[in-house]
């Protein structure tokens, strides 16, 4: 996902760069009559509008699929394994830290004091899921760990002076 976001951003940013450089290069020689130029520019803009819209709207809708808010339908679904998590300044309290791979896990995240963020990192240190830990509310991360191994948990919401030390681990593997 991060890779895609990065590449799409780069492509869009480059396209804008080309447009701006094109205009800068063509800024030197003056076309005295602005009216005709505006007409051409407006008709190009209409095309541009539709081109952008035709890419953006489907992308926007497409990206509304697979939202993290509800569990994904999984083939091998049994009852989900549940981890109850409470964030404290500045440590994580979890009622279990070991789950089975390839089976759904519900991580129920809340906080005992201030806002924290429960971020799960895989062994390549890539963020794979997160939810806010907010006092008075419980957010549920629905996740299925594909691989055995140790996943790191980092705090994703600033919570004071030891925020960056608020780490723990989830072990994924047969018990």
């Amino acid at each position, binding site marked *: *996902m*991060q890779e895609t*976001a*990065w590449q799409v*951003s780069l492509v*869009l*940013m480059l396209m*804008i*760069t080309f*447009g*701006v450089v094109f*205009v*800068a290069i*063509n*800024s*030197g*020689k*003056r*076309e005295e009559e*602005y*009216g005709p*130029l*505006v007409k051409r520019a407006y008709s190009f803009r209409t095309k*541009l*509008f539709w081109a*952008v819209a035709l890419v*953006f709207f489907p992308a*926007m809708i497409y*990206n*509304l699929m697979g*939202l*993290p*808010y509800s569990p994904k339908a999984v083939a091998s679904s049994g009852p989900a394994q549940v981890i109850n998590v409470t964030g404290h*300044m500045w440590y994580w309290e979890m009622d279990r830290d070991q789950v089975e791979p390839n089976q759904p896990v519900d991580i129920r995240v809340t906080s005992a*004091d*201030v*806002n924290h963020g429960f*971020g799960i*990192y895989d062994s390549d*240190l*890539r*963020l794979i*899921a*997160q*939810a*806010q830990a*907010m*006092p*008075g*509310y*419980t*957010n*549920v991360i629905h996740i299925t760990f594909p691989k055995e191994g140790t996943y790191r948990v980092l705090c*994703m*919401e*600033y919570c*004071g*002076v030891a*925020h*960056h030390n608020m780490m723990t681990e989830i072990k994924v593997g047969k018990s």
Partner: protein
Amino acid sequence: MATYTYTPVPDQGAKAGVLAYLVISCVVLLLMMLFGLLMRMEQAQMISIGALWFYKIMTLHGAGMVGIVALAGAAIMWHFLRQYVDLSTGIFMANLILFLTGVVMILASVLLGDFHAAWTFLFPLPTTSMGMWSPGAAALFMGGLLVIGVGFVLLHLDIARAIISRYGGLGRGLGWPQLFGPDDGNAPPPAVVASTMVTIVNLIGLVVGASILVMMLINVYVPTFEIDALLAKGMIYFFGHVFINAVIYMAVIAVYEILPRYTQRPWKSNKVFLASWTASTIMVMFIFPHHLLMDYAYPKWFLIMGHIIGYLNTFPILIVTGYGAMMIVYRSGIRWDMCSRLLFVSLFGWAVGAMPAFIDGTITVNYVMHNTLWVPGHFHTYLLLGMVAMVFGFMYYLGKPNENAPDSALDVAAFWGFVIGTMGFTMSFLYSGKISAARRYAEHLPEWVPYDKIASYFAMLLIASVLVFIFRFLTRLGLASRDYQRASLARSMAT
């Protein structure tokens, strides 16, 4: 009816008040940039100031930057708007005094009281300090924000009054008669339309912000006065998002006003322009859920709204304002000087920074990129290379010795240093976000450190360039208040 002839308007010098705003902006901006550099170097392990100082500086940098760019944006807006409507200098100065009062309170809270709950003062962190700061320090910080907010409310009320008395209503200020009826060509100029938009959204944003600040201030001393954390977060981000975005919409007035003077082409408030500003008025107020996507407790429709408006919001920026600037410059024979360069590049910075921003507003992306360095990556792009470039462009405009004054090689080098420094700095942030480096970490994991180092060098280049900009403006202050022709005329085949 639309005509495409340009009617020259004389360049006016800045009032003393505007110059006071700008000089203070220079000083604070530079100091906050140095603070930013310190943070980046701490993460890069090039220096060692410790977590407490890191977070104190982070709190100052966030509050200070947001405040100072608002001040600079207000200076630009006020300078041009008063050429169309009748604004009160007294209120303009009252805002400055309230601002400085608030700044002193915030500085005292952080430096003397060790307050470090970040500029977003997310409830209940300010009142839950684990003994790191006192309730008094928290109250001082929030009180300082409140005082600054009151100043801006006054300023916007005066602007609203002036626009209403000149045009007959805020709807007219947004050009609604021309937008929804026949375009008689009498819509207010872009500077007025933008000021109206900013005034509407900021008044609403500031009232919401002040409400949550007052609630939290009560909570400091009366803990039984309970506040719902989810509600508090929604209110804070509504205010914060509106306020920081309004800053860009204020500063862009410099582009609307000055680029036409260089190209002798008009920037008209036509239907598309008016529609885009009305759309922005609404969208900037309803887009804030994109900060809350990882709070599953909000209603789903609310979060999806954030996602959708995030996509839509890019249209006015790209297709109307960005494109409009391209149109006015294309084959215009514009003479490039420091002012026109900076204003032109500012729209590039704004548009290019909006790309990673809306991508982050995609819920499935946000799931793995929220609160990573991707976020400061995109907002530093459009704030530095967009908003701040507009401010410096405006300063070069005010200080330009005469119409045909050439730029020194040092200034031109500083321009490129600024562009390259900023892009390098923000791209390193974005890349760090791509590799999942968390934001607001005083200490980075070893895997993240190489990019922190690269970012620090680019930040140094950027700050060195800004030093030149600031030096140049301060040495030309005497010119800035005089009325004379500044914008170079476009190269013309006719003359």
